[in-house]
């Protein structure tokens, strides 16, 4: 049984009773299948992070304006005076 409360809180979700039950069932199936991994020794393997063997894909330091501020602010659910707006957040 996975700790759904903890993970939903970390993922900023609030599951309904039925979702929670369904996720719990599905998570159990998945986690049980992960048991197979225990049998394999990976001590001699290094993690594969990207299948691409390329390195040093870098960009020259040249600034470029994408578009007007107005156009991007138009995506904001709430905006004020050139800022994106959310409820007061202190931390």
């Amino acid at each position, binding site marked *: 049984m996975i700790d759904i409360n903890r993970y939903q809180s970390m993922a900023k979700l609030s599951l309904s009773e039925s979702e929670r039950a369904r996720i719990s069932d599905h998570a159990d199936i998945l986690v049980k299948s992960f048991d197979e991994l225990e049998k394999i020794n990976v001590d001699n393997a290094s993690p594969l992070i990207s299948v691409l063997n390329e390195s040093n894909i870098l*960009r020259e330091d040249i600034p470029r304006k994408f578009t007007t501020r107005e156009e991007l602010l138009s995506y904001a659910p709430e905006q004020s005076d*050139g800022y994106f707006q959310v409820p007061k957040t202190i931390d």
Partner: protein
Amino acid sequence: MKYEVVMGLEVHVELSTNSKLFCACSSKFGAEPNENVCPACLGMPGMPAVTNKRAIELGIAAGLVTNSEITKTISFDKKNYFYPDLPTGYQVTQLFAPICKNGWVEIETEKGKKKITLSQIHIEADAGKLVHDNRTDTSLIDYNRASVPLIEIVSNPDFRSAEEVVAYLEKLRQLLSFANVSDCKMQEGSMRCDVNISVMEKGATEYGVRTEIKNMNSLKAIAAAINYEAQRQIDALETASEELVQETRRWDDSKGQTFSMRQKEDATDYRYFPNTELMPISIEDKWIEEVRANLPEAAHDRFLRLTEKLGLSEYDSNIITGSKNLSDIFDKTMEYFSKPKEVANWIIVELLSIAKGDNKGEDDVKIDCKKFAKLMELVDSKVINRNVGKDLLSLVLTEDIDPEKYVEENKLGMISDTDMIDKVVQEVLVEFSKSVEEYKEGNQKVFGFLVGQTMRKLGGKANPQLINSLLKKHLS
């Protein structure tokens, strides 16, 4: 002193690149809110990150000036948490393969020299900025700063006093600004410092409970916060007035106290994992040597050059090499007018005081060095007198005038005609006969007054030495 204060520092420094770390938006400070943003740094889907080459070079430079080991292959990782200034819900940072390790910085305090050792330096992307609007009970977000490249310099817990911390920050600022890594301006947020602090009884083998203090926006605030927090911890241990817990505390400058920040649940499980969008970066020796060769001359080397080669006093050299901007002005001006003591004098005495009146410090003052040099030459060769020179300096600074042309057009050339000066001296002695009497009675100060009056009548342009000698002649 029963207790010892132990501190480690995490210093965040904004790199002086032109564009952001993972997108091409400008990273310059001071733009209108949300002027320098694009879909990528706003967290919108569809625009993959591509790493800024210059940011890596500045990371290498930071490693070189802090005697660090540069990691051969670096990569980026993702740190997951939700906060409105973080548009993607994760910060790109380096956990597994930071760019530098095991460096050190030498500091000097009243107690002498000390080596502060560094654990590591890593590159990460900055977040946006939140401003709180109390009227509407909302927070306003400006994403100009989101994805600006930062390095985080993590020290070992080597600090034992606020003085050491301040010396370290000043030294870091000098090292990094001279290397063109960052302008390190705390007031603009390009250098920020968090302090991890604990106290322990002298001779103890285990560190005490440590807290992290944040939100200090100046060196003064840092020193005050350290002293307050150290005392708070000592009081807690001595009187058991409160229990010390490992936590993050916020410095409140107006109240002069630290306050506990609200505890966050699961605050520390950031679920770090490797960033699969960004390919690793291999830093070969060749690249490191290129960066090293292009490093501007370090402050200390400039100091030695100014004192040993150019014969400046240590005092003057310290001032000039205290700021990269000032130091560059000195060197550039010397290219056109190569009398070091004169140049130093003009910078330290005249330029800085005029700039101060304009609310500009040694880091901000901007001047055309060729014109500055010309000005010095005009005074040095007695074409104009020094006072006229000072006035012109103001005009060069504010209006960028051409000094030579200006002198010609406004007939500011120094009057060295002895007969003319003599005539005016005699006029002054007649007009201010009372003062002459006072002088003859022994009041030496009046001499200066008479010089001043003579100079005034000559439109401020006369050769002061001549006025002096002629006045003396008539008064004796």
